[in-house]
């Protein structure tokens, strides 16, 4: 039995209308949904390398997992230096990022929120998936929901992975077992 995990960038109290975080996770088939109480989003574009380092260490000391939103190639390279963080791919990754990320143990994230933002983003994500798959880097797919209406089930997220070119077992791993790169996320 797979344990599915999702990343939703919303406040847990926003789900009170639907019955709370745990009932929603149980209803949809997730064993855990990471929210803003577990994850600290950091905008990588607006920060220099030094400022990004400070923010990452601040988030880690607060007991949260840093999530760097990498919208430019430069912020992507800065974010790849840190061990045990999430990097949301919002731009096309290159081989340099892949090499560093593989050595450091960075976990790239592709969110449905990014795919919905523009039709071209689907092509960008498909290229990233090919690169990460060739470089043998585990990555995760998640909803990245900023509102309760954006939540989806694990099999729907895996189907998006299939649409991006992954075979179904790897797409399911991207929603479940690949989260084991970060310690303490999977039960």
């Amino acid at each position, binding site marked *: 039995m797979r344990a599915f995990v999702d990343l939703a960038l919303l406040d847990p109290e926003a789900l009170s209308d639907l*019955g709370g975080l745990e009932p929603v996770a149980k209803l949809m088939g997730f064993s855990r949904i990471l929210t803003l109480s577990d994850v600290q989003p950091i905008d990588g574009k607006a920060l220099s390398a030094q400022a990004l380092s400070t923010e990452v260490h601040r988030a880690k000391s607060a007991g949260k997992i840093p999530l760097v939103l990498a919208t430019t190639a430069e912020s992507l390279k800065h974010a790849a230096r840190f061990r045990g963080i999430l990097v949301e791919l919002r731009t096309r990754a290159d081989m340099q990022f892949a090499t560093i990320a593989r050595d450091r143990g960075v976990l790239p994230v592709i969110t449905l929120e990014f795919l919905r933002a523009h039709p071209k983003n689907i092509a960008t994500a498909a290229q990233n998936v090919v690169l990460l798959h060739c470089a043998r880097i585990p990555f995760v797919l998640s909803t990245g929901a900023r509102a309760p209406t954006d939540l989806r*089930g694990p099999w729907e997220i895996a*189907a998006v992975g299939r649409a991006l070119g992954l075979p179904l077992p790897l797409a399911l791993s991207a929603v479940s077992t690949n989260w084991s790169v970060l310690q303490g996320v999977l039960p």
Partner: protein
Amino acid sequence: MRIKPLPPTLREKRRYLLVVGTDCRGVVRAVQSVFGKFYSGLAHIYCVESGLADLPVGGDIPSDGEQAKQIKYCIVRVRRDLDWLVRAALALYEFPVPVFVPAESGTLRALREKGVYSLIVGKVPQRLNKGTSNQKSKNPTEG
């Protein structure tokens, strides 16, 4: 005696998906919007049933006294090798409510027997529950 499973070529070429949160028209609109009318046609989406159901409160069926929210649901029949296309379209389309397909969706028999249908919908309709009613009628004490 153990019954041999059917080979993949002889299995049913359709898959039944219980979609919670929208109706059949919403499913077709999502696939057409995301992948276009061509792939929507290839997926052979056919509406089996749609209606309103009680949203489970805290993962359980609400009892008579509890106020339950009504939520749309539908059962659609799709081509087995393109069910991922329908699921991906549901994930990428922006619905006004959370939409998901329970993992146990697959065949009508699974929807009836595994209990997910009754968990989401609250009550199994008589039309889908023919197998159970036939078994009851075989019992001579019940007439």
